[in-house]
């Protein structure tokens, strides 16, 4: 049972996102300047009216310490603003902003995050998040680590290559309606996906998320302010994040206990879920998450194509929240789950339950 009813009502009132394979001649500041102003303009607020600003990005990806400070230029940092940053996916920045709004001193918050993996080698960047003594010096790439997890699931009969292909197919077909989807196809065939060779054994190219550049901006507002800014706000009915051990060998990699717990604490209630946007690096991870959340056939999963279609380090999770919120704001859905993950093999997980009035 969710305790969220005792919290202050906070809603997503505006979203903007952009993803593409490679952003060329556009840096992170330019990308986010467009997205942030679109997000503010669509609900008619200026930065002066925003009570708190929180961002998520990676210095390791940008190759520069305090790289997020540059991106504050896209917000407009004068007059001075109240601001924070997490070296995490923007979904976790949204959690911080939600906590700030709970305190009650401000009524609005801007959350944004971005990543530009095309400028470096993301698989090497992600190797540096692993244990610095036992694992990082071996430089395992992120997809190989995910492949170890997929094989465990296959060997134990918990998933099949066919189920993985169905998941990839769903992503590609759903993504064909999403301008941000880098890999999508209306004509994708199950046979073709099954016939693809494994590129990171047992994962095929279509089982692995499509790395993309991009970013996302979201405006949160509390109580009456949310109703003033948006006809149908996407209310945050519950939000929670949990973490499993950093050490791969001590975890049961066929599961994600922290995802299960976060969903439970956020008050998931699968009987009333119109849609779910789940964040995984592989088709196998999406299958783990569907099981942890115990989703039934009534819930449409990853209508955007999900992170398999376009995966932007530090933004993919916030984009999941944006995808659910925008469908609630537009009246296409009443209640949805958004999920964000961080760390290897679904180590850390955030679940946000959104609902229209």
């Amino acid at each position: 049972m969710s305790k969220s009813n005792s919290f202050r009502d906070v809603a997503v009132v505006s979203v903007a996102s952009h993803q593409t394979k490679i952003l060329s001649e556009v840096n992170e500041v330019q990308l986010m300047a467009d997205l942030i102003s679109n997000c503010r303009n669509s609900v008619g607020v200026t930065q002066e009216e925003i009570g708190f600003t929180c961002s998520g990005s990676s210095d390791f990806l940008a190759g520069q310490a305090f790289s997020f400070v540059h991106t504050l230029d896209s917000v407009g940092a004068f007059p001075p603003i109240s601001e924070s940053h997490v070296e995490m996916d923007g979904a976790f920045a949204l959690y911080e902003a939600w906590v700030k709004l709970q305190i009650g001193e401000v009524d609005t918050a801007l959350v944004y995050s971005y990543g530009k993996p095309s400028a470096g080698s993301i698989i090497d960047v992600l190797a540096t998040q692993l244990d610095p003594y036992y694992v990082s010096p071996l430089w395992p790439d992120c997809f190989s680590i995910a492949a170890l997890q997929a094989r465990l699931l296959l060997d134990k009969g918990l998933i099949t290559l066919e189920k993985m292909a169905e998941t990839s197919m769903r992503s590609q077909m759903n993504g064909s309606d999403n301008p941000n989807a880098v890999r999508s196809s209306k004509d994708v065939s199950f046979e073709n996906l099954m016939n693809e060779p494994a590129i990171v054994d047992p994962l095929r190219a279509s089982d692995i998320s499509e790395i993309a550049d991009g970013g996302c901006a979201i405006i949160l507002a509390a109580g009456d302010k949310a109703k003033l800014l948006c006809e149908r706000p996407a209310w945050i009915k519950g939000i929670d994040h949990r973490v499993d051990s950093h050490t791969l060998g001590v975890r049961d990699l066929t599961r994600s206990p922290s995802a299960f717990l976060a969903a439970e604490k956020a008050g998931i209630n699968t009987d009333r879920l119109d849609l779910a946007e789940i964040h995984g690096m592989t088709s196998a991870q999406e299958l783990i998450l569907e099981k942890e959340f115990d989703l039934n056939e009534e819930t449409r999963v990853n209508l955007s194509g999900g992170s398999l279609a376009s995966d932007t380090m530090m933004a993919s999770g916030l984009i999941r929240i944006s995808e659910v919120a925008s469908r609630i704001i537009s009246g296409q859905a009443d209640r949805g789950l958004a999920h964000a993950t961080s760390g290897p093999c679904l180590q850390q997980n955030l679940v946000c339950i959104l609902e229209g009035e």
Partner: protein
Amino acid sequence: MSELEEPLRAELTVEYPFTRTTGTVIGAFMTGLREKRLFGIKRSDGSVLVPPLEYDPVSSEPLTEMVEVSQSGIVETWTWIDPPRPQSPWDAPHALALIRLDGADTSMLHAVLVGSPSEMRTGMRVTARWKEERVGHIADLEGFIQETEETDS
């Protein structure tokens, strides 16, 4: 915004100009590697973590009792690396695996040195192969090779 095929690129070297000490648990494991020995650490329920951690991953209690484990064990899961990353200790294609050593209750990540993925299977037995010159680093362990009666002895 314009989107072309190639991004702009600039050279940048990311450095970590600090030194760290590895402490009594990780340090003991690293010293073991130099002596061709593999150590784990005992949890309060008697199970053994290899490689050892300073704190219990579930209860968070500090752990202190180091125990030596076998140099051989089984492959719990694996994938094939081809080509290896340039920074990695390996030049040739190899398997990357989670290996549970005999006497251990958890698995460690390392390479299995075989010529092709057809030689790999989950559950196969492997044994450690050491570098000639060892410095107290995870790559002192060159990797694991398939256990035969010869390597078993």
